[in-house]
């Protein structure tokens, strides 16, 4: 009867420290992206002329802002085990709508643009949540159709003369451009929603196990619908930001392939495509990483072929570091 002795007192589950390597890996899994960004900055500081200039950082932030805004919405959608390919086209649509309504002034125009984004998101969300179409196809249909619609509404690029929008795109407070401020504000908002709000928790629950969430009485359809609407709205806002920067509505080429950039940012940021988890700050970092990489390659005047191959490598490396183990 060995073991008898030990059988007298129950042994609690002992939380032992992980072996050093595992620790490092799990740290990498969480902060790999941040590390990569730092590394890239250091590299540029050393090898890229005037990289450390304030103006340069402003440029990078200005350029990444719209991507960040779109990626925030994408992160929520992916967290809910979905995907939204329509974001690029929604940006274009929002650009056309602005041009159409600019006559009524900047604010009404922006409102209409955001409304348009919400509607498109609503359609996508309805297809996914109510009809039950698979997200990738539902939003693929929108990707094609909405781009067309954007061009139907506004056949070609149109300059924006409106002072308010021009200011939004070109001016700043205390050296921080409005565009960047908007992106930061939206990031904090989404961060709060994900971390603190009931809705945020429910989103990841739905993404983690839809059936269980239904049985737990969550309004699964409403949640999904809302997620896509949010994504649409954010894409529309990104469209406004981009247009105001360009000082023109360009439904033809605005937001082309944005869906891929956004998805990349989200996944590189450590949000699994399988849903059930959302990393907001990671997503921002992911977008920043890809932006800095792009900038580095351009500044060093490398050919397109290099750029694309380098991006491939970085994406793989980042996601590899952040991958789920076991």
């Amino acid at each position: 009867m060995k073991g008898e002795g030990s059988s007298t007192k129950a042994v609690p589950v002992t939380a032992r420290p992980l072996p050093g390597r595992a620790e490092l890996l799990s740290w990498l899994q969480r902060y790999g992206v941040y590390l990569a960004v730092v590394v890239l900055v250091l590299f540029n500081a050393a090898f890229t002329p005037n990289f450390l200039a304030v103006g340069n950082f402003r440029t990078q932030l200005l350029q990444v802002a719209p991507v960040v805004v779109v990626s925030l919405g994408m992160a929520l959608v992916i967290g809910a085990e979905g995907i939204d390919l329509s974001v690029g086209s929604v940006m274009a649509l929002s650009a056309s709508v602005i041009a159409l309504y600019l006559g009524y002034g900047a604010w009404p125009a922006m409102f209409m643009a955001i409304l348009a984004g919400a509607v498109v998101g609503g359609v996508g969300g309805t297809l996914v949540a109510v009809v039950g179409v698979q997200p990738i196809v539902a939003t693929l249909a929108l990707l094609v159709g909405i781009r067309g619609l954007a061009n139907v509404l506004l056949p070609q690029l149109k300059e924006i003369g409106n002072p308010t929008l021009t200011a939004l795109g070109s001016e700043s407070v205390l050296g921080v451009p409005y565009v960047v401020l908007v992106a930061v504000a939206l990031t904090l908002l989404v961060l709060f929603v994900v971390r603190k709000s009931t809705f945020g928790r429910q989103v990841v629950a739905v993404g983690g196990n839809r059936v269980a969430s239904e049985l737990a009485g969550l309004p699964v359809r409403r949640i999904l619908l809302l997620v896509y609407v949010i994504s649409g709205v954010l894409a529309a806002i990104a469209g406004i930001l981009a247009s105001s920067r360009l000082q023109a509505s360009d439904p033809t080429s605005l937001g082309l392939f944005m869906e891929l950039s956004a998805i990349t940012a989200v996944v590189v940021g450590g949000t699994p495509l399988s849903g059930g988890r959302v990393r907001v700050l990671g997503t921002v970092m992911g977008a920043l990483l890809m932006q800095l990489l792009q900038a580095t390659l351009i500044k060093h005047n490398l050919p397109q072929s290099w750029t694309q191959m380098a991006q491939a490598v970085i994406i793989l490396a980042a996601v590899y570091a952040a991958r789920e183990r076991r």
Partner: protein
Amino acid sequence: MATTGRVLEAAGVLKVFPGVRALDHVSFTLGRGEVHALVGENGAGKSTLIKVLTGVYQADAGQVRYRDEVVSFSSPLDARRAGISTIYQEVNLVPSMSVARNLFLGREPRNRFRLIDFGAVHERAREILKEYGVHVDVRRPLGSLGMGTQQMVALARAVSVDAQVVIMDEPTSSLEPREVGRLFEVIRGLRDQGRSVIYVSHRLDELYQICDRVTVLRDGRLVHTGRMAELERLRLVSLMLGRKLSEVRAEGATKFSGSHPQGEQGGQDGQDPPVLTATGLTRRHLLDDVSLALRPGEVVGLGGLLGAGRSETAKAIAGALRVDSGEVVVAGVPLRTGSVSAAIRAGISLLPEDRKAEGIVPTLSVRENIALAALPRLSRAGIVSDRRVDRIVETFMKRLRIKAAGPGQLVGELSGGNQQKVLLARWLAMSPKVLLLDEPTRGVDVGAKAEVQMLIDELAVDGLAVLLISSDLEEIVEGCDRVVVLRDGAVQGELHGTEVSEEAIMSMIARPVEVPR
């Protein structure tokens, strides 16, 4: 070539998960032609040991010997090739594939062009399943069957490959006495052919019926191994729980008081009105005009064979299964059927049967999983109050003795039984009026089972109405004031207070089922 009596051995196996020593230098020996019970509390390490033995996990230290040779299987496939066939704890078949294709996956009969002969596949699948008393259309997607049936299919699959060692991790957790009986025949058959079986179960009397030797694990350590017969029941329990014999003896087998305020009159008419009445619930192929009533403070059992439609009944009441006709009235208010959230708002909570698919959210922590259903009432203006969440979580993790590294651990990493407890906590946190429990103690260890049963009692005493589905007849008999017996989706009859006994239930349900279709 002939070898010693040992077929499969684990020597000083260590397996560490982040925060847990799931196996702490465990040694284990399986002899030829023996049925070996592997027992222990939830989270003791049984499934982990099995996974190490069969190449799902690699041991961090120690070695595995098979037929006296040190082996390290890189995958379950390796193990199966070597002659070890396993039924893992959670039914592990492919829900989207047909029953037949699941049964034969990896070893489909071929025609002379070496191509799969689906005629033969379906034919042989039908035959095999008939032996196990399962009469389903074998082309039906496995996922459309109930847990119990799925478990039988998994069993059939594991046994029909001729293996030297068959490992069964809680094969009976949702089986009926009838199916359990069949399973035992199968196991004896294996033993007589000199094959060996590792048998994991929390149902002690089963162990005594079928097992030759027993190994007891606790918190990842080996605490006892020896002949089953020589280990008296109470000592077994005390070994598992790590509590003194005296304490355990004081407590007794099941924790039911067996009677409740309402139960006294055995649910006769003429006392306060039912809190829930379901009338004429009907759904093609599943439910046929099922009616029942639950009174406050009453525990009503649902009896029936596999596929009798008990889960379906519960789901229909909870709005999780659309019904073609029929209505549900809660506290006098008719309920919009087919809407879970409506049911929950009305105070109905359903603990679903399929823990993995319908219960846990694996990507979330224990904490989030417990709070999930209650979130709205735990938040103000759409903002979650972490303070309140923590309070609830703490309470129930204690009360149900949930074993986890902490509230932050991913629920997917918990042991089967502990996952079940988390789900119970989720529903109790809702403080419902009506509680529908589908296999609440499935895979829950004796200790916790007792807790749960005590809990059910308490709840009933507090005036809650409970509907209890359990494949553990003892549980039904001891726990219920009233038993409604289903068969083929229709109410077969009802037993009241004193009439409730295993024999009565059996005789009512176990009449030969005419083979459907």
